[in-house]
């Protein structure tokens, strides 16, 4: 017996001997985590999604207070009735909607623009000079004369295509959200919940025929029972009792949380409802709201996966007890993990909500191996307790190694420098490590108490059906050198094709709209509706020019504004750029406006006096520069946010920056939603190779330590490598880009997929070493003992994550599809390609008895 086996033996003795006190301890731990799990909070947040340490994002963070960053909200009000927007009903609704937006918590009130905000001006040039006035006159009451006036003013304002749709049947309200309370999951959750509720109400305000008035049934804080502190336009239905309403108290101060259970609701007709009005809302907060709505579906999938797994488990074992035990043990790490999260200050976010699934699937897979081994021992005549001990001894090493590799797979995900992915990695890693306790220790203890049903015993000991035997024989033939060559041939053909396809993989998104959601989701329909009716896109990249050491206003220094001017012109020539907004462009317009709007005057003069004519363009109120132009942002609207477009535009900007040095001015990438994507894509691209090298390197090392054989490492790693290429090819051909959600898939798939290889090879090695079998015989034996469990777990796990493909969330569907593919194909790799490789590595000499195992090592 090897020392490691002695250690395992001793642990098993301890575990089985002290099983009663240990069971009590584990029960207490479970109870504690169950209590703690009730405190877990949703932790969304914009800043978690961005690679905060990337230089672009540092730029963004530096100016988050000055410029809007990327957290914008666009509310589009569309008139679907006859005529255009210049009618009383629409204008009144737009005014109310503007007010609604104004009162969204966290909104930057100085930067709300719509036809009704005072920053929307028109300029009319006359022989006597020019006059500029707000587009909508003060004390607007929507008389026909005023409506005609507004129509005229809108034409002059140049806002058609900007805040009034090109067909003049819709108008836009733009606003920026300032994220407060970042980094505190509890507060961030409240903040976003309030914003999302307001957004839903803005939509309902004009689209919902009913208005909902809530009456308090008991006193909450300063509000007395019977009062009506809340009104809304969203029908929560039975979900109301789980809804929290945040109401600012009458005297001001922090909003009071009123639980939905303390309110009764009454529906009233909505006076502002108009069937001719349609509301489109886009922006991060709305996206988040829709993603969270989509996450509700996650629980349905969890239930579905659970039921499917239970049915499969029962079909496989024919034992209700084993099924129940396996499911409970698979759920334990999920519960422990959720209980652990609040203790380490983490919350659940749209990414990490997927971890419990994964943990559950992996948990089932390991539980099946353990119960399977236990059942075999019991059927061979051992007592429950002895069988549990033996199963533990047999599986502790390969099981723990497999779980360690899983943990490793999750750990390398942390190489992606984005907080949400970090948390995903940490959460998943913890979950898998917890599983070593639950699966390898709690499960054997539970099994000691289990008595196998006779039905299950009969099922397990029945002679192998002919079909099954034939199947195993066919699989076992892969371990014969001749058949192995065929396997190689097939694999090489596949390899050639997929390698070629995989080169088409793009980093970043490959579609339009919000990549998190499906193309036909309400959000993406709204996005398309807005993008198609206005000239400015919703994809904006901002470059910030710092000019800190100039005397007075930096914008009055020609070298500064001239650089921006050149940059503006350069960008207009870059493929993928739709339009550009810069202080230089606006400055030229202002200067030309002072010269009767003559296009020949649209230029920036070299003198400070000349430039000061355009100083109205350098007003920080316009949101393009800070006070005295210490920092100036240039907004670049791109055609789309496809990875390739972003990469090209960013590369061209870097080229411009390198070839246009101006003393005292630094051009810094990048802000805006495209800036965030650029940084994310770069972080993902940088992490890809590092991550793959780390995971494969670590796996190879772990296998080497476990098996002490180089050829064994090749047997396990080569199939995994091939499947990873397949996965890339699949992504490329399905148009799934490599991004935050899909990059971890390869690591997860490899980390989990290696299980099959490890479980099988460990058995093969045992059989060859202990019983002197040839490789083919050993493989057949390994398949007999563990193969069916491996196939079974691959199928259950693939189905478990496969349910995600039904999700309303595109990234989740993508992840589900790819993970299911990885799990299944890795299993196939382990039972077909692994033996084919082994057949040649451990090929017996003709006429020889024992195989010269692994002679080719080193």
């Amino acid at each position, binding site marked *: 017996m090897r020392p490691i086996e002695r250690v395992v033996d001793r642990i098993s003795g301890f575990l089985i001997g002290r099983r009663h006190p240990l069971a009590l301890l584990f029960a207490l731990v479970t109870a504690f985590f169950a209590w703690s799990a009730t405190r877990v909070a949703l932790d969304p947040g914009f800043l978690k999604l961005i690679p905060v340490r990337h230089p672009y994002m540092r730029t963004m963070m530096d100016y988050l207070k000055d410029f809007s960053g990327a957290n914008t909200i666009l509310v589009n009000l569309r008139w679907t009735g006859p005529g255009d927007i210049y009618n009383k009903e629409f204008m009144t609704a737009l005014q109310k909607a503007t007010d609604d937006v104004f009162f969204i918590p966290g909104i930057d009130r100085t930067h709300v623009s719509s036809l009704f905000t005072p920053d929307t001006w028109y300029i009319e040039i006359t022989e006597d000079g020019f006059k500029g006035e707000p587009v909508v006159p003060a004390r607007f009451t929507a008389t026909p004369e005023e409506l005609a006036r507004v129509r005229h003013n809108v034409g002059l304002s140049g806002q058609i295509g900007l805040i009034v749709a090109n067909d003049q049947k819709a108008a836009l309200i733009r606003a920026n959200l300032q994220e407060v309370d970042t980094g505190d999951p509890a507060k961030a959750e409240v903040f976003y919940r309030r914003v999302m509720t307001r957004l839903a109400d803005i939509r309902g305000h004009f689209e919902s025929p009913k208005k909902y008035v809530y009456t308090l049934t008991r006193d909450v804080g300063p509000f007395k029972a019977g009062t009506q502190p809340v009104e809304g336009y969203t029908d929560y239905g039975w979900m109301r009792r789980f809804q929290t309403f945040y109401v600012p108290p009458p005297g001001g101060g922090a909003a009071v949380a009123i639980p939905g259970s303390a309110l009764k609701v009454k529906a009233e007709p909505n006076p502002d409802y108009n069937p001719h009005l349609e509301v489109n809302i886009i922006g991060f907060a709305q996206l988040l709201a829709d993603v969270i709505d989509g996450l509700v579906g996650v629980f349905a999938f969890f239930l579905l996966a659970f039921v499917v797994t239970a049915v499969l488990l029962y079909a496989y074992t024919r034992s209700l007890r084993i099924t129940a035990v396996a499911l409970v043990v698979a759920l334990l790490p999920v519960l422990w993990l959720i209980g652990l999260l609040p203790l380490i200050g983490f919350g659940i976010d749209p990414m990490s909500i997927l971890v419990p699934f994964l943990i559950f699937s992996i948990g089932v897979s390991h539980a099946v191996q353990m119960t399977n081994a236990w059942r075999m021992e019991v059927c061979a005549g051992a007592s429950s307790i002895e069988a549990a001990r033996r199963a533990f001894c047999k599986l502790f090493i390969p099981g723990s190694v497999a779980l360690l590799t899983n943990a490793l797979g999750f750990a390398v995900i942390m190489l992606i420098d984005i907080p949400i992915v970090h948390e995903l990695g940490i959460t998943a890693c913890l979950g898998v490590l917890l599983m070593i306790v639950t699966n390898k220790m709690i499960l054997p203890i539970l099994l000691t108490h289990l008595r196998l049903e006779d039905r299950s015993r009969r099922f397990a000991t029945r002679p192998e059906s002919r079909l099954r035997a034939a199947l195993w024989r066919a699989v076992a033939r892969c371990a014969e050198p001749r058949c192995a060559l065929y396997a190689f041939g097939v694999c090489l053909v596949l390899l050639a094709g997929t390698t070629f396809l995989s080169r088409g993989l793009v980093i970043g998104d490959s579609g339009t709209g919000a990549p998190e959601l499906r193309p036909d989701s309400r959000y993406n329909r709204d996005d398309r509706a807005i993008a198609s009716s206005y000239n400015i896109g919703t994809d904006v990249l901002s470059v910030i020019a710092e000019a800190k050491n100039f005397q007075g206003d930096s914008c009055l220094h020609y070298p500064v504004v001239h650089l921006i001017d050149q940059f503006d012109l350069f960008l207009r020539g870059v493929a993928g750029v739709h339009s550009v907004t810069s202080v230089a462009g606006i400055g030229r317009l202002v200067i030309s406006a002072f010269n009767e709007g003559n296009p020949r005057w649209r230029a920036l003069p070299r003198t400070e006096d000349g430039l000061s004519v355009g100083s109205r363009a350098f007003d920080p109120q316009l949101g393009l520069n800070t006070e005295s132009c210490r920092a100036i942002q240039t907004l670049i609207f791109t055609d789309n946010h496809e990875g390739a477009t972003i990469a090209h535009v960013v590369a061209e900007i870097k080229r411009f920056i390198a070839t246009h040095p101006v003393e005292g001015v630094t051009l810094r990438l990048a802000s805006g939603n495209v800036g965030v994507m650029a940084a994310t894509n770069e972080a993902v691209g940088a992490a890809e190779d590092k991550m793959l090298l780390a995971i494969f390197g670590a796996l190879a090392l772990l296998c080497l330590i476990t098996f002490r054989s180089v050829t064994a490492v090749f047997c396990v790693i080569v199939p995994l490598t091939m499947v990873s290429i397949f996965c890339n090819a699949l992504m490329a051909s399905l148009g799934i880009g490599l991004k935050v959600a899909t990059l971890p898939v390869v690591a997860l798939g490899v980390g989990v997929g290696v299980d099959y290889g490890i479980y099988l090879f460990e058995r093969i090695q045992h059989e060859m070493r202990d019983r002197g079998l040839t490789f083919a015989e050993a493989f057949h034996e390994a398949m007999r003992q563990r193969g069916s469990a491996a196939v079974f777990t691959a199928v259950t796990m693939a189905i478990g994550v496969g349910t995600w493909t039904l999700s309303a969330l595109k990234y989740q569907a993508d992840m589900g599809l790819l993970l299911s593919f990885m799990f299944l194909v890795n299993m196939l790799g382990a039972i077909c390609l692994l033996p084919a490789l082994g057949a040649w590595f451990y090929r017996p000499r003709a006429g020889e008895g024992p195989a010269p195992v692994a002679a080719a090592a*080193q």
Partner: protein
Amino acid sequence: MNHSLDEVAGRAAVAPLASRRESAAVRAWPAWLFAALVLGAAGYAFSPRSIPPFPPSVLHTDRLLVTGLARSGSRILATAELGHILVADRPHGPWREARVEPERGSTLTRIAFVGPRLALAVGQDSWILRSTDDGQSWREVHFDPARSEPLLGVAGPYDGKLYAFGSFGQMLVSSDEGQTWTEAPLDILPVAGTPPAKPQPADADNPFAAFSANSGGNDLAGRHLYAMTRAADGALWLVGERGLLLRSDDGGARWQAQPTIYQGSFYGVLALPDRTLVVFGMRGHAYYSRDLGKSWRESEVPVPDSLFGGAVDARGRPILVGDDNSVLRSDDGGAHFFLAAQAAHHGLVAGLAAVLPLPDGEALTAGDEGIAVRKLADPSAALVATPTGAQP
């Protein structure tokens, strides 16, 4: 007892270890080869992927401000923002960039052919560029960054003299085909019998208050000059800011101010082959004279857009362009203009600054949205003016 798989294998072997290993490695070659191929493929599949090729970054002729157009034979030249000059041999392009030496980055405002293969371009900072090779390459002949005021027009040669003029009455004259330029301040005779112009009241809303306040009483000499032409009788006409209308019978030595016919600015003056003079300017105002400028009548213009450029086509018809991408033409010698083209625009402003008539009822226009070839409608199919100009 701590034996690895390989050691077990080694002990199990009968033959000497070294040769066994060697031969076994050779015997397992298909597996090794396969492993090597997979790893190689992985190395290739995961190596950095280049982004798909994009068109190179160049000036897009529909995305920059183009202020002037000139044609000689088949060669077409255009002046653009930040000192770019574009060259084409066909109206539809392709356009390429001319070489400008040195690159000052000042926005150019107008361009003209003033001799065989000889062209001049003027712009901001009193910048004058000269080309002797049909516009392929340009050299600087005048530049005054300290003053930083634009030249807005170039004209000539009239009796061997070339004129470049612009803001605040700035006038430069060259007698050597544009190689050297000298300042020639305007000598203006006021209109007989009119009192000196009143200074405009200093009004915060009036952007011109600053300019007029400085120029005091007779400010004619300080007004911006926008265009010059020579009438059939050889007289030079110069138009400019706030209705400035000047006539010179002695090659620009002295200018006779004409009675005011319009308070707003004039941006252009055209001499038609039938001896008609047309002046045009702000907010759809144009005037024509059949008697070489002795008397003027207002033209009928269907749009209130300011008109910044004009040209006479091969059939002697004036074509005017201006704000809101409006293109106007008159088929009756300037008495009536009709809207011949008006394109949608995409930005805050969409002014046209210059036009080149083309055969087949088309015109090349230049402005805020670059260069475009526009189909001109016939008077019978004249477009109805839209007040806002922007169309989806």
